[in-house]
């Protein structure tokens, strides 16, 4: 199968490549009579030189080679196309009857050589029997590809209309043929492709006007009915005289005829028994069965998409959804059938897809069993069984439980009208919306305005003096901390210096006094200005004086003193802070 596909692909690609340039051979009459004059034509869609003709010793060459060169420009929607073609033609007549092959000719196009494929022309002996000629000018033939078939086995019937050359059909009326006990699939016929055929020395144009694929539905001898066509055509009648160029002029005779093909029998056999259990009248070859599922884990109330794909050649176009035993808890809808079948020359092939929607009613673990399907293989004349895959389905608890009844017709009956009345005006529905929109944005803009105002205000109120004041306590505390370290290190000198500096620094920063103006008088002045108590003022001064003395006058119990002084300094700063606030 793979190999076949591969070859097909390669063929296809070759044909595509070759489409660009090819030396084509054409013959106007094939098969031809020995008495007939035929035209052989080589053509290529380019400017060709160096044509090497094939040996034509089997024919009388009446004229040729005649070469022609054809060039045309066309412009459609702004697209210009340049068409060039070179043709070399011969006029030939056969020397004798038989099949003759015109071997390949070659032509050079811009240095490259193109070869034509060999072409076979058939010549048939001419019998000029006048009585026979008049007998059969037009007839219909019906041919069946098989006459001995099983029920359901497809075969083709082709109706051809044979018309003798030189007959001019004026009117035709085709009666439809109906096939009893057969299922008919018609094939569309390409009207342009007419064949030429020679029967008993008479050349006919053959028009295939009906091509059907029939599927027998009943056993026994079945009759394929005759086809009927009513035609009227012109034939040459009596000699009327001669025209001015001394050519004979005949009377025109219009004949109308009703043509009928022969009917024939088809022997339809019963399929062998016993038929298998899962046989659903499928007859053909190369059937296959596949199943697909979109999910195996779901909540109850959700739907599963389960597909069965039947593929094959035969009466697949007639196959219908076959009964499947899904679990009882599943709600099964009628399947959606997709028909993807194509009518071939002798039978129908393609696939049919049955798409089921399954809705599990309650949670649990279910299995969709493996389904069996049998068909009758016409090649081996035996039944073949196909199988689908088995699926395990895990249904979890869903949001809403649907019982089996609720989705079917009973739900329709359950639906009742509501009888409560509470009308509102439709226009009122949007009222809220409007108010909300306006109020939200007004409030929002207020908020934004306030924020902007806040930020603006904040920038304005930051004032260097206030900032200094705030920082004063921080600096004092920092100094006191280093003083504390000095106690641990027994560094007396530095300790008293730190305390003194912290107190002066605190004072200076707090009351925004320049360092040059730091004096005891100023302390008294600023303290009284700020309504800080007299005792606190004297304590502050005393501490500073004490520190000054202590630096130079060593005392016996320094360690104890230092701790006391540190505590006093802290207390004073805290007290001043509380007063100033």
């Amino acid at each position, binding site marked *: 199968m793979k190999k076949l596909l591969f070859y097909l692909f390669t063929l296809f690609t070759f044909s595509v490549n070759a489409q660009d340039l090819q030396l084509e051979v054409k013959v106007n009459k094939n098969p031809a009579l020995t008495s007939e004059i035929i035209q052989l034509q080589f053509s290529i869609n380019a400017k060709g030189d160096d044509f090497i003709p094939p040996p034509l010793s089997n024919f009388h060459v009446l004229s040729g080679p005649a070469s022609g060169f054809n060039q045309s420009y066309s412009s459609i929607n702004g697209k210009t196309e340049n068409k060039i073609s070179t043709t070399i033609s011969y006029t030939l007549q056969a020397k004798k009857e038989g099949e003759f092959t015109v071997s390949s000719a070659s032509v050079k196009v811009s240095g490259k050589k193109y070869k034509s494929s060999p072409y076979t022309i058939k010549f048939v002996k001419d019998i000029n029997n006048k009585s026979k000629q008049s007998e059969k000018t037009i007839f219909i033939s019906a041919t069946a590809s098989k006459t001995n078939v099983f029920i359901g086995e497809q075969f083709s019937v082709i109706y051809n209309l044979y018309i003798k050359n030189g007959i001019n059909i004026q009117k035709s009326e085709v009666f439809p043929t109906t096939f009893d006990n057969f299922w008919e699939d018609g094939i569309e016929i390409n009207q342009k492709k007419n064949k030429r055929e020679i029967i008993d020395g008479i050349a006919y144009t053959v028009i295939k006007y009906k091509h059907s694929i029939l599927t027998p539905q009943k056993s026994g001898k079945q009759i394929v009915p005759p086809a009927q066509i009513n035609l009227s055509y012109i034939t040459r009648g009596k000699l009327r005289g001669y025209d001015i160029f001394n050519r004979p002029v005949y009377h025109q005779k219009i004949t109308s005829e009703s043509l009928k093909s022969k009917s024939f029998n088809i022997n339809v056999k019963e399929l062998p028994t016993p038929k298998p259990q899962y046989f659903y009248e499928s007859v053909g070859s190369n059937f296959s069965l596949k199943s697909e599922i979109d999910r195996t884990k779901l909540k109850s109330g959700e739907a599963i998409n389960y597909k069965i794909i039947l593929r094959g050649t035969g009466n697949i176009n007639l196959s219908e959804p076959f009964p499947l035993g899904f679990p009882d808890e599943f709600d099964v809808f009628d399947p959606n059938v997709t028909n993807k079948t194509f009518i071939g020359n002798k039978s129908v092939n393609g696939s049919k897809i049955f798409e089921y929607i399954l809705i599990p009613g309650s949670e649990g673990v279910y299995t969709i069993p493996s389904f069996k399907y049998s068909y009758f293989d016409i090649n081996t004349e035996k039944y073949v069984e196909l199988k689908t895959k088995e699926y395990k389905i895990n249904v979890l608890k869903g949001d809403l439980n649907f019982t089996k009844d609720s989705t079917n017709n009973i739900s329709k009956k359950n639906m009742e009208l*509501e009888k409560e009345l509470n009308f*509102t005006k439709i*226009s009122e529905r949007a009222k809220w919306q409007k108010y909300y929109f306006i109020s939200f944005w007004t409030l929002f803009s207020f*908020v934004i305005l*306030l924020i902007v105002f806040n930020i603006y*205000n904040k920038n304005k109120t930051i004032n260097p003096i206030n900032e200094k004041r705030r920082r004063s306590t921080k600096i004092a505390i920092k100094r006191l901390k280093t003083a504390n370290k000095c106690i641990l290190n027994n560094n007396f000198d530095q300790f008293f210096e730190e305390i003194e500096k912290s107190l002066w620094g605190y004072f200076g920063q707090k009351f925004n006094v320049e360092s040059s103006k730091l004096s005891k008088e100023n302390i008294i002045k600023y303290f009284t200005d700020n309504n800080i108590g007299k005792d606190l003022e004297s304590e502050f001064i005393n501490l500073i004086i004490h520190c000054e003395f202590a630096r130079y006058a060593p005392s016996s119990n320094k360690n104890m003193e230092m701790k006391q002084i540190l505590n006093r300094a802290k207390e004073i700063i805290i007290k001043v802070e509380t007063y100033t606030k």
Partner: protein
Amino acid sequence: MKKGITYLFLVFSFHSFSAEKIFEKADSLYQLSDYQTVIDQYNFVLEKGLESSSVYYNLGVCYFQLEKYEKSKNYFNKCLILNPENTKCKENIKLCKLKVLKKDSPEFFYKTWWKNYSNLLKINNWYLLSLFSIITLLILTFLSTVKKKIISKYLFVVLLIVNLLFYLTTQGKEKKNKRIFNQDLQNISINK
């Protein structure tokens, strides 16, 4: 006979328009299973500019009976907008979905989140919540201008974002509702 009765009803309804009467008539027509006429009756009510969740519900039921499940679903959705507590309506919507069998393609997770979140409250409650939160924000900002440091900067920003989120939610719900109510108009214009 059935048709005669319906015509009679129609004549009556044109004579005296009263929504209540139409409701009664519709019910008896429904019993006669003349669903198309029932639909016409309700449409007449809607054209008068009156609506009710039950009208939409009943229209949904009628279209369900006529096996026009898409339309039916649409009307049930409308009913649900006006009356979100109608559990029967919710069930019917699910039924319609099953009947239509339009397989819901798996949504992006954030879509389902958004859906669940916006369905926490009715649209009117969303409006109220949004307004309430913006008013609190306004008060807080006002207080923070008068007295300093009522709330921290970060909390403030968070509140602002929450407010905008509420606003977006209401807008989203509004849009959805509008779409549901306009769907029908589009259907009609297509049919015409």
